[in-house]
């Protein structure tokens, strides 16, 4: 009896998030699927011709293989560079260790468009570093425009922190006693690594690698600008099919191919995280070794010099683009200090170049961001309560078929790239009244992108609440709803604020979907930055981007004060 009544309550709670996901995510996605199979074409029921057409196109095949190849290469290089760093951070204490760890979060929280701009300002032709190198050697250090190495470097910058931070937690979860015992049993270093450390670190490495792969595979802003016509990810290719060739059916077919690959990767990721229970920071072992408290032998100096050089390099990779953005925003092309780049943003003329005045773009960004602060945590909260209503007699959430099905839907937005999301909303709703208000569509798209993260934060906060307190409150005469408002809501509040700010930060830096959907009147800061880069006004773009950096970093600093956020899926 009780359980049936609870199911009904769960259903009522799920109506709002359920309908939101169905109307704006599942149905539009199904619509794309049907388009890809030509169901809406005249005279056809189902056809594979769109798939055949896109796969027969030599350029599509080339870009598909290149996309996979660059994602694999990025992953491999990130592992190569990242693993030693994660090992040192996990095992040794040394000065500036915490500072380095904070630096490592920078690339992760920066919007891709800022990373792109940072790369422009640091490595573009005529940049300070390239000029310096040219004066020294006579050659340019690196050419990032339309080159493979430019894209790889940007992707590595973006993803190294993922490998280092996740693997660090992995190392820290290995019980140091196991290694001590193995050593006491006279195991060689290689055997300890092969039989004790590797089996425990492997699932973490696998999960982190899959994340890096999926981020690089679906990269949009970086490749759109740096890749030119020579290098395109599927994401960029789909965008071009829609806005350059206006070929929606082929775009739909490509979207499905991309989705299939993403789903496979995410399934693998889930397989590893379920099978091996990927460790969390909570169970870390304490660091007991120091790099500094040692006798000054030759080994000591060699080792510490190498470690120092390594982290200088990592620090440079992580911090340089941000420094580059601020430097470019405050200097002229002759490297003279100026505030002109900022004042340019307030000129009326600039709007004729980039379609909308920067102040309006800032207003749009804030408007969308605030909309998402209000919507995403609420949806996540409702979904969490709806899905976890029933518990076992020991108080753990009960897994039902219904729950596991909806669980899949919750993670599905992660497999759907932002361009796919925008395209699916565009293709289904472009002739409906919903589309007349583009700002609403942008808010919906950004909410869907932020939602899995908001959901994760809310779920984590909620799992920390002792459900017994709710039962005790009820035994003291308060109704279930009363117990929610008096006990759970106050305890959830930090999580709700965190989820809101996180969603805000994602929204304000979101480029792909917003760029796809925004007509000139609804451009946001990232779209404005992109337009300025396209006009090769890197200095003004940098001025604009520095504002974005300040807002984003500010949001994350507040989040960091509120509690720990897991950056994984």
């Amino acid at each position: 009896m009780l359980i049936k009544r609870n199911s009904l309550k769960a259903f009522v709670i799920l109506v709002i998030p359920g309908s939101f996901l169905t109307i704006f995510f599942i149905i539009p996605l199904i619509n794309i699927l049907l388009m890809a199979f030509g169901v809406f074409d005249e005279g056809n029921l189902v056809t594979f011709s769109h798939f055949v057409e896109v796969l027969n196109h030599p350029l599509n095949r080339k870009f598909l293989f290149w996309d996979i190849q660059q994602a694999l290469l990025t992953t491999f290089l990130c592992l190569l560079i990242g693993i030693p760093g994660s090992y040192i951070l996990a095992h040794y204490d040394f000065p500036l260790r915490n500072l380095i760890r904070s630096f490592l979060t920078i690339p992760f929280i920066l919007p891709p468009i800022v990373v792109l701009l940072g790369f422009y300002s640091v490595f573009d032709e005529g940049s300070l570093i390239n000029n310096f190198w040219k004066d020294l050697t006579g050659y340019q250090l690196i050419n990032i425009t339309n080159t493979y190495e430019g894209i790889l470097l940007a992707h590595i910058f973006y993803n190294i922190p993922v490998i280092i931070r996740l693997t660090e937690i992995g190392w820290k979860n290995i019980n140091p006693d196991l290694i001590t015992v193995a050593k006491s049993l006279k195991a060689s270093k290689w055997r300890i690594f092969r039989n004790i450390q590797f089996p425990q670190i492997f699932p973490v490495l696998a999960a982190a690698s899959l994340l890096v792969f999926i981020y690089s595979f679906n990269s949009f802003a970086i490749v759109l600008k740096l890749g030119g016509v020579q290098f395109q990810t599927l994401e960029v290719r789909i965008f071009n099919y829609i806005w350059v060739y206006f070929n929606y059916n082929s775009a739909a077919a490509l979207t499905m191919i991309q989705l299939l690959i993403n789903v496979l990767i995410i399934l693998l990721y889930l397989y590893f995280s379920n099978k091996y229970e990927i460790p969390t920071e909570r169970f870390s072992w304490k660091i007991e070794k120091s790099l500094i408290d040692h006798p000054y032998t030759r080994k000591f100096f060699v080792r510490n010099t190498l470690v120092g050089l390594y982290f200088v390099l990592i620090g440079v990779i992580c911090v340089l683009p941000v420094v580059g953005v601020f430097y470019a925003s405050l200097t002229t092309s002759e490297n003279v200090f100026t505030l002109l780049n900022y004042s340019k943003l307030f000129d009326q003329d600039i709007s004729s170049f980039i379609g909308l005045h920067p102040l309006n773009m800032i207003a749009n960004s804030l408007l969308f961001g605030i909309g998402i602060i209000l919507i995403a945590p609420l949806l996540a909260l409702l979904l969490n309560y709806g899905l976890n209503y029933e518990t076992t007699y020991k108080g753990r959430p009960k897994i039902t078929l219904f729950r596991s099905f909806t669980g899949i839907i919750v993670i599905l937005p992660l497999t759907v790239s932002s361009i796919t999301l925008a395209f699916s909303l565009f293709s289904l709703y472009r002739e409906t009244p919903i589309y007349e208000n583009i700002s609403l569509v942008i808010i919906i798209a950004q909410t869907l992108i932020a939602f899995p993260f908001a959901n994760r934060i809310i779920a984590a906060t909620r799992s920390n609440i002792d459900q017994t307190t709710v039962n005790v409150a009820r035994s003291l005469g308060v109704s279930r709803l009363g117990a929610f408002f008096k006990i759970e809501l106050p305890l959830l509040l930090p999580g709700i604020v965190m989820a809101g700010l996180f969603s805000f930060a994602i929204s304000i830096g979101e480029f792909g979907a917003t760029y796809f959907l925004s007509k000139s009147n609804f451009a946001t800061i990232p779209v404005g930055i992109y337009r300025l880069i396209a006009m090769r006004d890197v200095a003004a773009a940098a001025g604009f981007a520095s504002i974005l950096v300040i807002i984003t970093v500010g949001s994350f600093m507040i989040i960091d004060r509120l509690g720990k956020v897991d950056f994984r899926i």
Partner: protein
Amino acid sequence: MPYLEIDKLSYKYEEQWVLENISFTGEEGELIAIVGPSGCGKTTILKTIVGILSPQQGSIRINSDDITSSSIESRNIGYVPQNQALFPHLSVFENIAFGLRAQKLGRKSVKDKVHELAKLSELSDVLNRKPHEISGGQQQRVALLRALAPSPKLLLLDEPLSNIDSQLREQLAIYIRRIQKESNITTLFVTHDLEEAKMLADKIVVLNLGMILQDGSPVEINNNPKSIEVAIALGLKNLYKITSMRKNEEAKSLILMSEIGDIEINIPDDFDFSTKIKGIYINPTQISIAKTPYYSNNSFEGKVISVIPEPMFNQVTLLVLISSKFEKVDKNDIKVLRIHIPGSECDFHISEPVYCYIQEAALKIFE
């Protein structure tokens, strides 16, 4: 009519019975202990009574009122879970006042009542602190007061003395007993510790594997465990399983092959040989111990592994080499036997080989 009546309560989770046919009663103002090993369903009983879990069968009546299908909030039962579950975001005052506020009492009367309760329990100084800012003993008292404040019809305590320092345990046990007697609220408390139950309870219910094995007064349960299961659940020492038995026709006795070796017992003439004897308990105060062999039945050779002086006696623990005339014994199989001897007679030393003789009166047989 008893004040509390639990009648044939059964709770099933995923095709498995966690509680089966639980029935017991309690009088008004009685303190009842539910004792059993961990995982036996003790906490589940409390959860069904408070209303967190709905039993599939049976009924719960308080003062003749059937509350089996009432909602948690309408039952008026005070509940202190094992981890106390104090509201972490509320002060000690707000925690204690929580139930009074739900009763829509006026501000002044809530304040007066909380202060009165806090004064009696020496918590007045910490009323403005948060739960994590007070000691474990204080937390347990706050949880108890929070449950008692709205004057519930029944109070449920889940392992109230676990997680408390051994020094404070006794003090807290006395406090619980005092508060419970003063308020005269019928109380049910769960524990895995028989000593704790004996110290506090008017009545003990022994539970194992979701079933009641025995219930009665602490003295009754302690002196006369009904079955080997009760003895195991109570954690009695010197308890051995019987693997097989053999009739000794000449001596009119029965030889029991136990885990500790052969033990011979006299049997009455009308003894029914089809009875299955499951185990044997050897009272540690009725075992003789010497440095020379006894050369009789029911005597064993052993080695002293510890001598611990207790207030009234010395506890000598032996490792017994098992010997059996009838069954093959593994040479490596050794058992521990505890013997209580008066302090003055004890001159046994660790590792010393000794001999012991078990008096007939020391044996209690479980069928």
